[in-house]
């Protein structure tokens, strides 16, 4: 079982996208190691749907956020160490030792560089791992009563093992003698090969923990509280868009009583941004990530579907409207099979006439409201809202437009009710188009 979503949703919310500077992924992608970046990507592709896993992960993030930790190396140093550790060698102490002697011999006779490279790599690795040991000690000290304690203990013990002691002690008299080099090289690359690989993986994770929690801390994000699916609740206080600094925030609660949020407002009033903010918050919350809100409590959702900013692709013609209908059908099937989804529809059935768009919206919203799942529906068809007024599963809010002179301004703060604010005609009038056509103005 995994969190269900689709490409359009990820695009609408601009969640993934390694090379998009303004994606949610890139907002959090402050990792130092290449492996960390890979891990982060995996987290984005696989949101969790288990309450305990989510809460545990967010506790780990929160723990790291409170530690104010930095990785004790930069990406270049770590890459050198990785290169050294991952250079293949023989598992057997004697064969590996023979290889080192051969390297040394070749270095002396024909100036073969392998020996020098290995020696430098080993020395850097010892220094770097010693710093990691110090970091692990600090993590372990503070991790009492956190889900990370066991992991921290494990690696702390590992790095304090007797086998490593001579290496730490040798740091004072680098360069290493050939004899010591053979010995430590064997410890790092042969004896503890598997453990070191695992430790590297753990360091990638720590990289992610630090990167994500630092972004969350610096931006004042909070960790959401996940509850069981059966509660069917999405409670957000002060939710804003994580990509917009200083964004106006709003409170939104969608619960099992009132599960359809009917949103109206003019084009620039901030509907899309609000809908995206909620979608992004729920997505990040399922990853255990910090969310851009003051407080968030949510029941587990099985997935999320959005259609925001669907540009009307005329070349596709009929098939565009049809594709939208098919997508709604697909969502309907999932809802009917008792999945708990977050469904966000912005201007449903845009590519058709007013009557069909209105009838379609009313019929579909009414049918959806009788089922579980959380819905956010926006439309300009005020009549559709009027027709749905008596449905007590819906609640109505709008984003206001305040016209000053003939210029619209926006508060971005939700209000109760329905609005039919629009500025399509205002823009046309401001541009004097009708006067220009009639020739009164030229």
């Amino acid at each position, binding site marked *: 079982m995994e969190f269900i979503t689709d490409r359009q949703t990820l695009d609408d919310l601009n969640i993934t996208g390694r090379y998009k500077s303004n994606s949610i992924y890139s907002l959090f992608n402050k990792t130092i190691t290449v492996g960390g970046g890979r891990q982060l990507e995996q987290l984005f592709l696989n949101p969790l749907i288990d309450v305990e896993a989510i809460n545990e992960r967010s506790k780990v993030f929160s723990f790291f956020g409170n530690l104010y930790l930095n990785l004790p190396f930069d990406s270049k140093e770590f890459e050198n160490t990785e290169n050294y550790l991952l250079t293949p060698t023989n598992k057997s102490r004697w064969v590996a030792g023979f290889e080192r002697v051969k390297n040394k011999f070749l270095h002396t006779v024909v100036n073969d560089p392998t020996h020098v490279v290995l020696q430098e790599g080993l020395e850097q690795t010892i220094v770097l791992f010693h710093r990691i040991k110090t970091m692990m000690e600090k993590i372990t000290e503070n991790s009492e009563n956190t889900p990370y304690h066991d992991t921290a203990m494990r690696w702390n013990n590992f790095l304090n093992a007797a086998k490593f002691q001579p290496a730490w002690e040798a740091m004072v008299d680098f360069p290493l003698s050939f004899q010591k080099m053979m010995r430590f090289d064997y410890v790092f690359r042969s004896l503890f090969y598997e453990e070191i690989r695992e430790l590297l993986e753990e360091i990638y994770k720590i990289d992610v923990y630090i990167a994500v929690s630092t972004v969350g801390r610096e931006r004042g994000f909070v960790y959401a509280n996940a509850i069981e699916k059966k509660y069917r609740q999405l409670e957000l206080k002060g939710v804003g868009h994580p990509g917009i600094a200083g964004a106006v925030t709003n409170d939104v609660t969608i619960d099992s009583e009132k599960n359809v949020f009917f949103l109206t407002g003019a084009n620039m009033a901030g509907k899309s941004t609000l809908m995206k903010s909620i979608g992004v918050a729920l997505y990040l919350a399922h990853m255990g990530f910090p969310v851009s809100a003051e407080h968030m409590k949510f029941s587990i959702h099985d997935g999320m579907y959005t259609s925001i900013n669907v540009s009307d692709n005329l070349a596709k013609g009929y098939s565009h*409207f049809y594709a939208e209908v098919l997508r709604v059908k697909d969502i309907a099937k999932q809802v009917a099979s008792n999945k708990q989804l977050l469904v966000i529809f912005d201007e449903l059935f845009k590519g058709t006439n*007013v009557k*069909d*768009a209105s009838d379609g919206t009313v*019929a579909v919203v009414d049918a959806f409201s009788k089922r579980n799942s959380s819905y956010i529906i926006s439309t300009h*068809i005020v009549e559709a809202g009027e027709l749905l007024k008596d449905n007590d599963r819906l609640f109505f809010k709008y984003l206001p437009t305040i016209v000053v002179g003939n210029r619209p301004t926006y508060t971005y703060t939700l209000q109760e009710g329905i609005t039919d604010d*629009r500025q*399509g005609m205002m823009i046309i009038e401001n541009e004097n188009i*009708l006067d220009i056509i009639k020739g009164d103005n030229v």
Partner: protein
Amino acid sequence: MSFKTDTQTINDLRIFGDNTGKDIFGIFNKTRTGGGAKLLKDMFSYPLATASEIEYRVNSIRFFMKKKITFPFSSVIFDTIEFYLSNTDERSRLTVQENNLKRKLDQMVGADVEYQQLQQGVSDTLHFLIGLDKFILNLGDEGMGSALKEVLKKVSTLLNKDPFVFIKNADGAGKLNFDKTVQYDELFRFRSRNDILKLLRYAYEIDVFTAVADVAGSENFTFGEVNQQAENSIDIEGMFHPLVPNAVSNDLKIDEDNNMIFLTGANMAGKSTFMKTFCIVMYLAHMGFPIPVSRMRFSIQHGMFTTINLADNLNMGFSHFYAEVKRLKKVAEAVNNNERLIVVFDELFRGTNVKDAYEATIAVVEAFATKRKCTFIISTHIIEAGEVLKERSNNIRYLYLPTIMNSDMPEYTYMIKEGITEDRHGMMIIQNEQILDILKA
């Protein structure tokens, strides 16, 4: 005065496409020479806006078509000639004094490449002149329009001018000797270079006319007839889209009492194709080219602005609407400054919500309709706007492209009909997909 248009229009109509040949230019681009292709491209880039220029083209192509004249030259010689004439470097000029032992030795061992190239250029140019002269003499002027006659006379005059008289007796056979090569080179490349270039241009024009005449025959195109009356009128019978296989033909009549077409129909019913067909027909008619129609009579227009595939790379509802408004403003200014424009908007205001689109469509269509000398086609989903417009303007024609529901599957006739579509297949499709039943179950 020229026919005004812009890049948006050229792209909408696929006048020039992406070099795949699937564009309007590609249909006609059957010229045999590079110079001919260039001239053809110029003709496509600058449609005409005067009756005399259009009639000259029409009559000339028609004449070549009727006489079944083929292009009288081998196309390879033009590349040689163009290259040869482009070299005007004095140092490459041949002189008689150079005909010394060294040159003969060079020639014997094949080392004198430069001279050989020049000799080839001279020889091809000579063949071109002889060929052109013969072609004009044999053409005969029966059925030829007076304008074309005039042009051909200019060619004859040039060819009969003093320095070229010798070609009457030259046969072009055999290899030119050094002395003759030097003499002709001096004439072609230096003394009468401009005359040669002019003659080449006439040859390219002949190339274009014969090529277009061929296309007209094979594609079953006919010529439009210019209507010189003061009142604007366009009358087309049997127009079809030249790039659509087995395209359906439609008729369309525009006059000053019916100058605004309010076009509705389902998404796949063929609204865009209908509008593009009309625009391509009008565009080609203003080039004096054969047209994919069975009959056509039209008043000369001053330009054309279409908005069919407006770029919406901004991927934001509002921004697309804003792009539409900007475009609308530009077109509105053009309408205000010119009589007789053709203005086409496909799915006007699709970038905004249906309510804004409804209001804006009514306001803009009503305003445009007052410009009775211009021709408008505006397509929309917002069929409700049509009902209101019926009460406000009396010079709007309502046309639609029907959808026939064959059990559950929509079928399209692509035949234009009077009225506003009644098709509301939106709800029907929603019902067919049983979305509501799925949720009720």
